[in-house]
């Protein structure tokens, strides 16, 4: 039972990560592989605040979101000048920088040893067991999903989709494309931080290896396989890709083998989807831009 709750909590955390990245990648067409960096920033800000300043959970949560959102603005600005593939490399660079800082600034972040003993969240009562934590995770995941949905269904979301399809036309209709991009970058990064805070307080220990570029690629894989440009796709993708490798355990594979098979499974799935179903399970957008062909 605890095991099942554990999986559901992880799925909840990943739903936050994937829906928020979907806003950026699926709806606006800005492919970023820095999402794990924002996830990590959220986790570290909350963990450090809780450990060093002993501030309450909700304060940590809010500050982590603000810190990550501000970094999002910082990374979002280059996206106005650097296009497509080059921007992916720029986000990769940011991802590497964040990882290096977490890994090397030993006095502040604990370096490779990480930060142990992160206190459990207290919202009126201490949330110490899996059941209540699942409730907290679900509540925040539903909140994030709801916010994303509000955004994509609004005229703001309409402009995001237009930017994805034809930036020049969107500009000609009087839209400040730059401002839309930076804003959605900010929102996406801020939401990733929520997932980070949940992860840090749930596992109670964080180290930089949870927030590497591999993690970023894993998150973007879920978005693509679930379906870019469709929020339910991200939810479905998170469910399938988090629970699938767990099923491997029941096949009876030893842990050391299962871990490696996991990587092969994700990689293989991504290749298969790119080849035969680029829009994922229920996506509305493929990253092959038809206008490029013309």
């Amino acid at each position, binding site marked *: 039972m605890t095991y099942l709750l554990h999986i559901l909590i992880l799925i909840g955390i990943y739903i936050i990560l994937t829906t928020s990245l979907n806003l950026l990648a699926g709806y606006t067409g800005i492919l970023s592989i820095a999402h794990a960096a924002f996830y990590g920033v959220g986790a570290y800000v909350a963990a450090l605040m809780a450990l060093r300043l002993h501030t309450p959970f909700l304060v940590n949560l809010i500050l982590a979101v603000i810190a990550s959102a501000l970094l999002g603005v910082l990374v979002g600005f280059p996206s106005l000048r650097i296009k497509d593939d080059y921007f992916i490399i720029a986000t990769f660079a940011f991802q590497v920088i964040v990882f290096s800082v977490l890994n090397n600034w030993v006095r502040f972040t604990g370096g490779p040893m990480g930060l142990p003993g992160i206190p459990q969240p207290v919202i009126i009562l201490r949330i110490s067991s899996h059941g209540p934590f699942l409730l907290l995770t679900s509540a925040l995941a539903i909140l994030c999903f709801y*916010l994303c949905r*509000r*955004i994509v269904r*609004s*005229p*703001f979301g*309409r*402009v995001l*989709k*237009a930017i994805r*399809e*034809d930036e*020049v*036309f*969107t*500009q*000609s*209709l*009087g*839209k*400040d*494309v730059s401002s839309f991009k930076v*804003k959605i970058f900010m*929102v996406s990064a801020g939401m990733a931080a929520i997932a980070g805070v949940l992860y840090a307080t749930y596992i109670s220990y964080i180290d930089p290896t949870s927030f590497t570029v591999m993690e970023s690629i894993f998150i973007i894989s879920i978005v693509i396989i679930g379906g870019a440009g469709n929020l339910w796709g991200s939810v479905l993708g998170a469910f399938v890709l988090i629970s699938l490798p767990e099923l491997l355990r029941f096949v009876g594979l030893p842990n050391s083998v299962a871990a490696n098979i996991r990587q092969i499974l994700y990689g293989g799935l991504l290749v298969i989807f790119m080849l035969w179903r680029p829009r994922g399970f229920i996506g*509305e*957008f493929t990253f092959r831009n038809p206008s490029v062909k013309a």
Partner: protein
Amino acid sequence: MTDILNITTLDKYFDGIKALDRFSCRVRQGEILGLIGPNGAGKTTLFNVLTGFLRCDGGRAFFQGKNVVGKTPHRIRGMGVSRTFQKLRLIRQMTVLENVLLAFQDQPGESLTRVFLQSGRCHSQDGTNQERALAYLKDVGLYEKAGDLAGSLSFGQQKLLSLVCCLVSDPELLLLDEPVAGINPSMMEKILSIIQNQARNGKTIVMIEHNMDVVSHICERVVFMDMGQKISEGTPEEVKNDPKVIEAYLD
């Protein structure tokens, strides 16, 4: 008649090639001005500079007394200068109605804070816009297609739709880049009558057009440009018979 647009000595170079060479021109309020000239004369470049898509290397352009050169495309559109593109541009993966909705200016629902804090206002404004958008579509005979994807329309209908998007929110100046190129005669007639209607309502139109019959039919005045310069200006008849124009075409 007053000038709505006053272009003075615009320069634009592409790696040493002069796309605009001290180009100057005035556009009068409420007229339909034809912009003609051979391929590569700099007509589209002029539009791109005027609408902020290209930076120019010198000169100014005053729209209603305010310089637009150097401003960003969205600000220029906000000032009331709207354009269409030679290579048809639309969001083909969105419905016809959504394309028109995109074109409205100053939508409260395009501000993130308002989406969350004044959702009622965003909603009602979007509803009003929807009615207005449908009215536009009804006027041009695309009402039945409102829910279809823009990409599913015929080429002529797509051109018509891109013109509608350009007209939304009543811009004062329309820069139309070959609005009737490559479409059938009945659709051409429809688009031309919309353009004439706009002029009757006091809007100003500058259109790039290669078809001299079309130009003679709807333009009161014509500017002929070549090698980035204004070669000739006047009524269609005058320009057609200008020896400098004939010479430019023979080159």
